[in-house]
């Protein structure tokens, strides 16, 4: 079930908040605001907070529509239509930098909200999406009226969804972001506390917000009523101090990609400049010919070909298995202020599954497609040889993933394939150009097959039939 569904349905992920919910009707996404939320919504709009946040791209803009469109009339106060997110992505698909941006955006929103008498009632990483290249809050109903003295109810969630995984990625191993796939409400703080190096206890922010926080959670797990009476109040100044502490702790966390498998890919591969330029030229020509609205670059590395596509395509998602490549790509996106390119982490041999309640809250990789055009440059040998996937099954997969396919066949004589075969038996008699074309013709019409200059490789343009 995707947000692009054309059936009338409440979104599978939108059920926790009594203030309202998202639903889809005739392909349009709406948010119903319930009567219980009337005051809060009024404050959001009248205080100027909505305008301030949307102006700097921190909150998704919306328009108000006919109340008769409400999905559940009795409860409805208003119906709004938010701007669509071109491609939904999840925190376990983000690079370190993207999660950091999402965290800082959340805190920035909270600071601005406090100034205007409001406060975030949750701090879930799933409330943030990348829109126009920036981390943006998509849950318009996340705001409550701030009452001085009240603690931040979202503090626990913020530490689990943002601070813990960022600290683990920066200080232990960048791959630990995948814990977010297993723990749907963020990394448990006791786990983060155990995994983080002990030197992190010397860092005030990590000591308090992770280690001591984990201890307090354990100690007061069953405290309930006792806590309510004992805890005391928190002034606005104290709240501000808390937010700023989280902010500076996160600002100081850094992960610089270096020396991972693909980070220096284009420096060490066997492409001559002529081959590279020829590939870019073909990708550019074919994109202009196909005119896709949404393109996916599978195995995009640092996005060099994704950028070529993005010059003639309104939105491109650049997937790669290597966190260093995705990070590099994202840093360049931020630097260039690119709005139509989204780098994401993806292991093609084990793509993101659907998770959450009833395995339907967060969509799988495939459920968020198909794309109009898919690029599969320099990946086929990894799938067919390293992962032993038979060519016909690869053809099936690509046919389901996108309407048009730009795919590069990397034959056995190519040095990259030779590397993959050095320490294993060659059990791939069908992995030849003829075998490749036969397998793909079953699912595609091959429009073009061009040999890449100064290389053994062949670039194809195919359309699924």
């Amino acid at each position: 079930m995707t947000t692009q569904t054309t059936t009338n349905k409440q979104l599978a992920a939108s059920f926790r908040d009594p203030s309202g919910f998202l639903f889809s009707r005739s392909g349009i996404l709406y948010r119903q605001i319930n009567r219980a939320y009337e005051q809060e919504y009024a404050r959001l709009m009248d205080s100027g907070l909505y305008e301030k946040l949307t102006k700097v791209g921190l909150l998704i803009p919306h328009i108000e529509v006919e109340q008769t469109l409400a999905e559940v009339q009795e409860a409805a106060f208003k119906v709004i239509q938010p701007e669509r997110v071109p491609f939904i992505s999840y925190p376990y698909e983000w690079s370190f930098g993207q999660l950091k941006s999402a965290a800082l955006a959340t805190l920035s929103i909270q600071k601005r909200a406090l100034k205007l008498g409001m406060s975030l009632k949750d701090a879930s990483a799933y409330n943030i999406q990348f829109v126009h290249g920036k981390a943006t809050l998509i849950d318009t109903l996340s705001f409550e009226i701030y009452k001085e003295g009240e603690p931040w109810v979202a503090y626990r969630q913020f530490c689990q969804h943002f601070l813990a995984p960022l600290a683990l990625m920066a200080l232990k191993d960048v791959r630990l972001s995948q814990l977010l796939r297993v723990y749907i409400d963020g990394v448990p703080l006791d786990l983060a506390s155990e995994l983080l190096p002990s030197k992190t206890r010397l860092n005030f922010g990590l000591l308090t917000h992770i280690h001591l926080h984990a201890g307090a959670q354990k100690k007061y797990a069953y405290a309930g009523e006792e806590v309510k009476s004992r805890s005391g109040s928190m002034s606005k100044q104290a709240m501000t101090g808390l937010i700023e502490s989280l902010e500076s702790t996160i600002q100081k966390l850094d992960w610089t990609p270096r020396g991972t498998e693909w980070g220096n890919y284009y420096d060490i591969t066997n492409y001559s400049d002529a081959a590279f330029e020829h590939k870019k030229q073909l990708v550019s020509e074919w994109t202009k010919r196909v005119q896709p609205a949404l393109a996916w670059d599978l195995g995009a590395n640092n996005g060099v070909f994704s950028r070529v596509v993005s010059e003639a395509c309104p939105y491109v998602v650049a997937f790669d298995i290597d966190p260093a490549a995705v990070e590099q790509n994202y840093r360049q996106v931020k630097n260039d202020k690119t709005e139509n390119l989204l780098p994401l982490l993806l292991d093609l041999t084990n793509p993101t599954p659907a998770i959450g309640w009833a395995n339907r809250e967060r969509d799988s990789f495939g459920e968020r497609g198909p794309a109009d055009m898919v690029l599969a440059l320099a990946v086929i040998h990894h799938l067919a040889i390293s992962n032993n996937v038979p060519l016909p099954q690869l053809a099936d997969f690509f046919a389901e993933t996108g309407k048009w396919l730009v795919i590069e066949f990397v034959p056995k004589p190519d040095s990259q394939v030779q590397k993959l075969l050095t320490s294993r038996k060659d059990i791939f008699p069908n992995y030849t150009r003829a075998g490749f074309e036969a397998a793909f013709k079953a699912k595609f019409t091959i429009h073009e097959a061009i040999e890449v200059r100064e290389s053994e490789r062949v670039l194809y343009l195919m359309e699924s039939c």
Partner: protein
Amino acid sequence: MHFSPHLYLDPGSGSILIQVVIAALLGLGVATRLFWGTIKKWLGIKSKPVEDDDDADDN
């Protein structure tokens, strides 16, 4: 402490407690900073311009 009905999220008892403790400590820091700002003004020492929240953050 009364939680409004909109607050569907479980804040966690331990999280509430630790937060109040940390925030109290840090609130001292914020208050001190503001206090020093006032002292500096009295003494005629120029302070850095306050950041304008209307500008987009470089996140």
